[in-house]
């Protein structure tokens, strides 16, 4: 039942191609997860700030954006990108671009909520102190609020990265060669589902579990937000 030889034979393909994205195919779980979280966070900062804007015409679109993407399955968003990008751009783009767009747009909704909670965790006195020093609203946000908010957000960001890291497996649905897709390819050739899928489960688990321990450690060190 547990045939470790099949893992050993396919180890380079699974780990280099599937996990890291080094090989003949465009792929890689990490190569998708890292740019997704970075770009998603940048978009999330704008959404989080917009959700707290005093002007309703800035706030409402941000609220709708967040509520929309939190009410729709990620699989659906991936298919949206898969079909809509060629229609809008009049040309097909590689799976990597489609998956990246889907993850950035989807995760930004969740990251926006984290940013909002982070900003709200900064005492109001800090805003007033910034104003008293003669900073404009944007300057106060940029130099006073965000740096402190960012520190409070770090544990939640790590947690969200874990979620994103697991979600990248869904990019295999549109053919992106990540770890899950690589396992499918190997299984189609070897027909040894039990050891192959158990192996990638363990690979995912080692990554996510160590990150969740790290998040817990950060939470203790930084203290509750």
């Amino acid at each position, binding site marked *: 039942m547990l045939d470790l030889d099949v893992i050993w034979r396919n180890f380079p393909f699974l780990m280099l191609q599937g996990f890291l994205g080094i090989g003949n195919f465009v792929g890689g779980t990490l190569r998708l997860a890292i740019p997704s979280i970075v770009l998603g966070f940048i978009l999330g900062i704008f959404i989080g700030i917009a959700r707290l804007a005093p002007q309703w015409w800035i706030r409402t679109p941000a609220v709708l954006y967040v509520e929309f993407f939190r*009410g729709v*399955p990620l699989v659906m968003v991936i298919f949206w990108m898969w079909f809509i990008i060629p*229609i809008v751009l009049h040309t097909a783009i590689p799976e990597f671009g489609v998956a990246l767009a889907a993850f950035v747009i989807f995760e930004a909704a969740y990251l926006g909520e984290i940013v909002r909670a982070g900003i709200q965790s900064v005492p109001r006195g800090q805003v007033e102190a910034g104003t008293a020093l003669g900073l404009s609203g944007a300057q106060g946000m940029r130099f006073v609020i965000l740096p402190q908010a960012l520190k409070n957000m770090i544990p939640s960001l790590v947690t969200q990265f874990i979620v994103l890291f697991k979600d990248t497996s869904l990019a*295999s649905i549109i053919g992106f060669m990540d770890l*899950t897709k690589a396992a499918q390819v190997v299984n189609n050739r070897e027909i040894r589902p039990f050891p192959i*899928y158990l192996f990638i*489960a363990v690979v995912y688990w080692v990554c996510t579990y160590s990150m969740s321990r790290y998040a817990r450690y950060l939470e203790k060190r930084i203290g509750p937000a």
Partner: protein
Amino acid sequence: MRYQFNWSVLWTGESGLWLLSGLITTLELSVVAWLVAVVLGVVSGALRTVRFWPLRAAASFYVEFFRNVPLLVWMFFWYFAIPPLLPQVVQDWLFAHGLEFWAAVCALGVYSGARFSEVLRSGIQAIPRNQLEASVASGLTTFQAYRFVILPVALRLIIPPGTNESLNLLKNSSVALTISVAELTFQTRQIETYTAKAIEALTAGTVIYLVLCVSIAIVMSWVERRTAIPGLIVGGRQRR
């Protein structure tokens, strides 16, 4: 070439029927998996708070292992890796009764159960420890104390995060399309394949998911108000 909208594809031909059957399958899958998840979540969540460490360790292993691996991997695991290990009789029954549906129920139920477990544990830990001590002092066994004192309070406390997780379960059921369960997303793709009208088909599927999620959230916020425990900050409005 500009995209030509043709919304009528949604009500001509069999599209409507497909969407309806997809919606029904999504609901069936979600409800059955939800029941599995609640049982597993309540049992393992409660076990993670007991004194006896082997039970705690077993429950922790279940939660940490199943929660930290992508659902898609579990789908493949339950669909491809588990059936060959089962006795021939069970295999025959499964092949005759929709193997993919039951694999999806197991994958979604066991995965979500691990997530529910965390929610329940935080609910139990929010209850002061002296509640348990008081129930044991009044002559209840530990099991009875959990059954009659701790769990009823914890289950009321966790309605908001529990709703959130239940909605996650509903949305995650879309992953079952990878093992060809004909649920809502699968049927949306089917309409797209037959009519080549991607935007119309995806809009229909997306709207159905949104309506489902919003209506469940509205019903649950009503339930939350009805079952709020008076006197607690999290309990919200006081009731007579």
